């Protein structure tokens, strides 16, 4: 949940100062927790699961490669030209073609869940595909991601 403005009251991990940088699903906050007679519910019983990625999940990228316009996604070297020419990215920074390709290549499912509602913003204007030095055809990849992100 990226927006910080609708601060829901019963949001988990309220007392964590750097709360905005911890995803919700990694916070386990028990309503009731009794440890040998001592009440440690709420923040006293809260644990955060580590976010260490043990191995990269390549299932996503294989799927994109099967789709016709996602063929060259592996060529991307994260230079950022697609985002810099993309008119949408300069108006809505949550839409960032380079970053979408990156999280798909790395298989960061939690990031994809966070940002998947922005992928449809792609206008399909093709400016990025024309600028891309590796001919990854990012606008095609965006279309592929539209399909893929619904599945994540």
């Amino acid at each position: 949940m990226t927006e910080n403005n609708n601060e829901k009251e019963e949001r988990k991990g309220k007392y964590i100062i750097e709360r905005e940088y911890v995803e919700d699903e990694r916070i386990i906050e028990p309503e009731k927790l009794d440890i040998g007679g001592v009440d440690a519910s709420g923040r006293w019983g809260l644990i955060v699961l580590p976010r260490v990625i043990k191995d990269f999940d390549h299932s996503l990228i294989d799927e994109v490669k099967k789709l016709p316009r996602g063929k060259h996604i592996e060529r991307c070297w994260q230079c950022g030209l697609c985002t810099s020419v993309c008119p949408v990215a300069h108006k809505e920074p949550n839409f960032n073609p380079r970053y979408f390709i990156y999280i798909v290549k790395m298989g960061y499912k939690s990031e994809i869940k966070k940002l998947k509602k922005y992928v449809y913003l792609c206008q399909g204007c093709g400016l990025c595909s024309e600028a891309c030095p590796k001919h990854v055809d990012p606008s095609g990849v965006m279309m592929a991601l539209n399909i893929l992100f619904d599945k994540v």
Partner: protein
Amino acid sequence: MEKNKSVLVIGAGPAGLQASKDIAEFGYRVILVEKNSELGGAPIRWKYHTLAPDFVPTEKVLGPLIDFVKNNNLITVYTDSIVESYEQKEDFFNIKILNLKSKGVYNEKVSAIIVATGFEHFNASVDPRYGYGINPNVIGINELEVMISNGKVLRHDGKIPKRIGFIFCVGSRDRSTNPWCCTVCCGVSIKQAIEIKKIIPDSQIYMIYMDIRTVGLWEKLYWQSMENYHINYIRGRVGEIYWTGEKLLVKGEDTLVRGPFEALFDMIVLAVGMEPGEGTKQIAKVLGLKVNEYGFLSPRIPNIHYDSGKDGIFLAGACVAPMSVEEAIGEGSAAALQAIKYSMRKAKKMP
């Protein structure tokens, strides 16, 4: 030594000059053919002020070579000339040289040929996104080198720029222009940025890069620029540049920290890459040399540059692959030795 032994050297850049000097010092005659009117190749043509990584003045490196070649009687120099045709005989070549200005044709007999026709800077107007040639104050690192040599870095309206941006990999590492890396423009740009900081101390310089490739001893330029000259490095690419009438609006993405950004710059320097020069293309046709998919001359074995695959013809310098001045000079000597060895072996009829 046999007086009539002579070697044809095509191209008077760092490689060609060094080859001519070595061969002349060995005692052979040298026929040096240069397309332009002055010797020294790209470094002199674009008035390189200093050479990376230690800011050695170009004059100190190439000056002696040029003086030697000009004053040595064993070396006959044909400027404004190209090799029109060649004919390979048993143990010598008949060369026809055409002077582009006077249209005069000269014949020479040589025992070996060294091709050192060098490179040309990428013409950034080929890549429309930077508006090179249309937007004022968008210049290449070659033009900037001329400005630095004159000691004054000025905008088109004569004012001193405050915020200068360097854009890396223009015309390099890009499938739509040249998919190779020119190996030097990172180091050269950083060197120039430091020189600008010396000329304009309160300037703000931004290097917009993908990866900094200051290889070998050139790495100290990268650290020096950050530690002593506070030059900023933004990892990302620039998509578009607009001229707002007074400044350049640069649209890009900072992939690490800022995300998509726009910024106003007073001047943008494009780190233009290296392409095979006109001379290289022309000589390849004339001598029938093999050329790789990028237009560079391709040696028989890619890792051994001097061996062109044709008997008696040797390659040297940036016509084979993008390289720095120091490497080109080294390859000039290498080709010179091969040419001398070939000529001596031919003289003794050895295989």
